[in-house]
């Protein structure tokens, strides 16, 4: 029973990682753009929720769509103004550019909101935990699992079953051919980027309770996003999803059973997985 509780913990942790990283995975796969500033969108989402709750008195549950929409809009605007010119630049330039954005975001938030930890108050029905057949499950964790699970399912469905998804996949495979087929690749990119940013923002809100929120968030968690994306492979939904689950569960279980090596687990696991599957655990076979 204890193990099931742990499993729930691990899955919830993994789910948040997935929502945070999924946008990065898609933009990387689709546009071949390395956007290390992805975490800044997550942070923006988190801070948006904090401000909305504290200053505008919005209930927690409404901050989720609000943060999603706000960061998606921010993503769309920034894509148009800043990111589009760098698509054609080298990866190293993209690294430099997006790190620059991270620095600006970190210092900017510090200036506006101060450098202390931020908090949100969960509504009563999300606090504490309840028993399901003898397994103690945190209410908030269950909420996160259900919400993120639905999101993952929806994304997967959208990616594989809709017209938008098939166009997206076509563009991922070969942007030039897709353009030739009359697919509006630019608009597709912009929409995907906004969606990815929105997801990051949503993940940022969900993560405040589990991961904390302060101005160094984008730098602190950049590594985790990259781990999920690399291990999961880019340009699919299921890859990062399973990778995030695996890492979340392994991290929690490892720390529980052998706490002495707690900090090693995630990195050791990543290195081993990448040596076994250099293109990511669930990458589609390339020929």
């Amino acid at each position, binding site marked *: 029973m204890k193990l099931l509780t742990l499993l729930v913990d691990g899955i919830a942790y993994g789910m948040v990682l997935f929502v945070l990283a999924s946008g990065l995975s898609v933009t990387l796969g689709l546009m071949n753009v390395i956007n290390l500033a992805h975490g800044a969108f997550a942070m923006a989402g988190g801070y948006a929720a904090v401000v909305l709750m504290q200053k505008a008195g919005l209930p927690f549950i409404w901050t989720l769509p609000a943060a999603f929409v706000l960061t998606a809009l921010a993503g769309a605007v920034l894509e148009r103004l800043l990111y589009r010119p760098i698509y054609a630049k080298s990866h190293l330039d993209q690294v430099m550019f997006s790190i620059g954005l991270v620095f600006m975001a970190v210092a900017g938030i510090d200036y506006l909101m101060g450098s*202390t930890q931020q908090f949100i108050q969960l509504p009563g029905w999300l606090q504490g935990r309840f028993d399901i057949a003898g397994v103690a499950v945190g209410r908030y964790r269950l909420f996160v699992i259900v919400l993120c699970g639905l999101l993952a399912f929806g994304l997967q469905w959208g990616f594989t079953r809709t017209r938008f998804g098939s166009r997206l996949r076509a563009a991922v495979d070969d942007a030039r051919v897709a353009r030739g087929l009359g697919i509006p690749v630019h608009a597709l990119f912009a929409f995907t980027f906004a969606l990815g940013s929105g997801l990051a923002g949503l993940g940022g809100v969900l993560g405040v309770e589990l991961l904390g929120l302060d101005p160094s968030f984008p730098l602190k968690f950049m590594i985790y996003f990259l781990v999920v994306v690399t291990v999961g492979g880019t340009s699919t939904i299921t890859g990062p999803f399973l990778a995030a689950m695996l890492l979340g569960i392994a991290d929690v279980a490892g720390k529980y059973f052998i706490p002495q090596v707690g900090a090693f687990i995630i990195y050791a696991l990543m290195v081993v997985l990448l040596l076994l599957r250099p293109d990511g655990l669930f990458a589609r076979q390339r020929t």
Partner: protein
Amino acid sequence: MKKRTFLGLGGAALAAMLAIGGAQAQDAIKIGLILPMTGPFASTGKQISAAVNLYLQEKGATVAGRKIEVILKDDTGVADVTKRLAQELIVNDKVTAIAGFGLTPLALATAPLATQGKTPMVVMSAATGIIPDTSPYIVRTSQVVAQIVVPFAEWAAKNNIKNVMTLVSNYGPGIDVEKFFSEAFFAAGGKAENMRVPLQNPDFSPFLQRVADAKPEALLVFVPSGVGAQFMKQFVERGLDKSGIRLIATGDLTDDDILNGMGDVALGVVTAHHYSAAHDSPENKAFVAAFRKANNGLRPNFMAVSGYDGMHALVEGLKKTNGQGGEALVNAMKGLSWTSPRGPISIDPETRDIVQNVYIRKVERVGGELYNVEFATIPNVKNPARGK
């Protein structure tokens, strides 16, 4: 070689020449303040620098007719940068003293410099026991880990806690907490089981599950102040607050800086520390009010009071030496005693470490805000780790 090779050889060198260099006013007494102003420990830097400014504003910034000028530097939390900044302050800016030092390695890296440059060094945050021993020029106004946890262990033993599990972040201060608490608790007849968590650790659930398995009478926690909130929420989330396990901690967990944001989960947590913003004294009330006014409502925490007292020690010392630095200033600071916002404190003339009261507090709601309310005092605690 290709043409782009030369895109800057001369240019960059020239820029180097121009960019470096500067001038300074002559007569001021300069004090270098080196703090982490960016990065994960930025809030430490903010609290201390704000308190230093407040002190100078309140108590006047002149000694012996000379203005006191504080030069603030961002150490970015990196040891070699800290050391370089200190060295530049000593060699170039000819500062009378250096102060700050947010983290133990930063203080330890700089200590040999203080000796070499005969420059007094006031440690305003780092809390590992050995720091003042590494240079005769170091004076500490923050706290020592053992100073807090040894009396705390004795208090716990006296208050019917017989077995404790410790949960500490796996780095210098955390390991100190584990060691000194366990030893003192054992000496007082208790039994402690130890567990360490990684410093970069967003999710405490597996560790808390182990705590739930072990069912100790109390759980002693030390995590760096920002992370405390996460810990506390997850502690309550798992229902551990209702499981009969008492949560006790050093004051870092319920840091005044963030305590109010934690919400009701923090209520009732018992901690030991040297400062609470709720400390009941006229000095503290004035300090808290002035600090909040100057900093947009921010509540001062134990870092702030260390910075405030650090400045006090320096200014009082300088008054005695008539603005002289060096060994004279260190000697002048030795044995100083005064009533700080945290209560009566003094600088131990022998160890140059702070002697202060340790308070046992409980989180309560006071006037709509959460505070650490002191309910027991262990007076005049020296660093008990000396000579061990």
